């Protein structure tokens, strides 16, 4: 028994030492690359707007994406950045957020934190002037009628304008926008109005 203890405390052989150094190098390299590579702001599910806190906690466990009843939560890819791959992002062309709080409930590590439904902002809607139907012809007001927060109004020419104070980035305007269907675009997520992340998010506040 005594010998057992001695054996377990022998120092690692050169081979193991090399393996360990290799492992350490891979993890340190990966961490460094993850931090250095520039990342674009992504649309996180509600409660995940503090990006620094979000990325430190997200385990990429898939629970929020899977639980979302409107399928608004999708996954970021390696093409977004190594660090963002597999993390949840909002895909408003597939669904909109009704702030049901289920994603926050299931998030095990509170990467998505409990939010105040009155003040939470996922992002805010931006009219894509080159794609929006109302901006180069006229007549379409689908997004305006769909907005539950009256954040979209029409200007004198009947073109949609977003009030950033009222918009909380729920994404229903992007979901219902018919630009892709009515015009001859190829590609599933082209819309005349899109939710953009609030640069800097709440971490600066």
């Amino acid at each position, binding site marked *: 028994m005594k010998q057992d203890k001695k*054996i377990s405390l022998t120092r690692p052989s050169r081979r*193991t030492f090399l393996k360990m150094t290799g492992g350490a190098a891979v*993890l340190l390299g990966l961490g460094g690359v993850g931090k250095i590579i520039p990342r674009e702001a992504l649309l996180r599910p509600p409660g995940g707007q503090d990006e620094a806190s979000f990325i430190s906690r997200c385990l990429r466990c*898939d629970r*929020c994406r899977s639980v979302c009843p409107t399928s608004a939560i999708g996954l970021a890819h390696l093409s977004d950045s190594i660090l963002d*791959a597999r993390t949840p992002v909002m895909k408003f062309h597939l669904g909109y957020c009704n702030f049901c709080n289920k994603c926050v409930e*299931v998030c095990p*590590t509170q990467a998505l934190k409990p939010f105040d439904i009155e003040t939470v902002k996922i992002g805010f809607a931006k009219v894509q002037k080159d794609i929006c139907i109302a901006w180069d012809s006229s007549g379409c007001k689908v997004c305006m009628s769909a907005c539950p927060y009256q954040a979209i109004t029409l200007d004198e020419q009947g073109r949609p304008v977003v009030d950033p104070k009222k918009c909380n980035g729920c994404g229903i305007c992007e979901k219902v926008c018919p630009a892709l269907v009515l015009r001859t675009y190829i590609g599933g997520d082209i819309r005349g109005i899109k939710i953009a992340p609030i640069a800097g998010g709440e971490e600066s506040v």
Partner: protein
Amino acid sequence: MSKNKTRSLRMITMAIVAIVIILGSAWNIGTGSLSAFGLGNIDAICPLGYLETMVAGRDIMGHLLIPFFVIIGLTVLLGRVFCGWICPVPLVRKVLTNKVDEPNEGSLQQVSRDGEIVMESCAKEHCHTEKNLSSGLIILGITIGSSAIFGFPVFCLICPIGLIFATVFALIRLIGFNEPTLDLIIFPIVIIVELVLLKKWCTKLCPVGALLSILSRFNRNLVPTVDRSRCLEESKGVKCQQCRSACSLDVDIKNGNGAGDISDCTKCKECADNCPVHAIRFPWR
């Protein structure tokens, strides 16, 4: 006969776990993956993921202490059952290389020699096989340290368990939402590098296994016992070593000379099934 029986049983439990996770994801139940599997606000969280996010986010996350300690308790109670029966890695290795467990190369060489040489070399240096524990502690240190330095769970990015399910989820997204992505090629490449090219992932490199192994030091149940009166080596003086060479973690249950300690035992039952005289027994069956 029974050799393949336990192995098939293990593959079946692994497959059941994987299928439950895949169905939960495909049907939007919100059960998650092995990183955090649960319903509602109850999670079976990956203990390593918890430690990583804890140091990365500089927050103890009190609500996770209960599941964390439940998993520690289960590991103390059952040992590394996760590695042998739940983790999808052996299942995927079976698909990739047609082998469930990593081969134990270290002891095979010794077995091929005749008895005296083994004893001789053992007395000189081979007996001082370094234990998996020491390298496990270093691996765990590197994993948690890197999370602390960079402020995010670094290992999670390349964890094969996470990537296996990530590949499945990417497939579900591809089928369900027509989302083709590079991830579907890169993730499998990383998995192949880890499980096929690095031959000793489970034994020497996996930090999850290392953590479970350390917790299993306190495990006293489900431990194999040797009936020394039946063992060929003890009763007939034949050099056998079948139990040790069958063990992918190089646990030498008879003499403790292998790189693995009994705390590394994943309860895979290969030793018992490979013993020519059935001298090894597990507490069940």
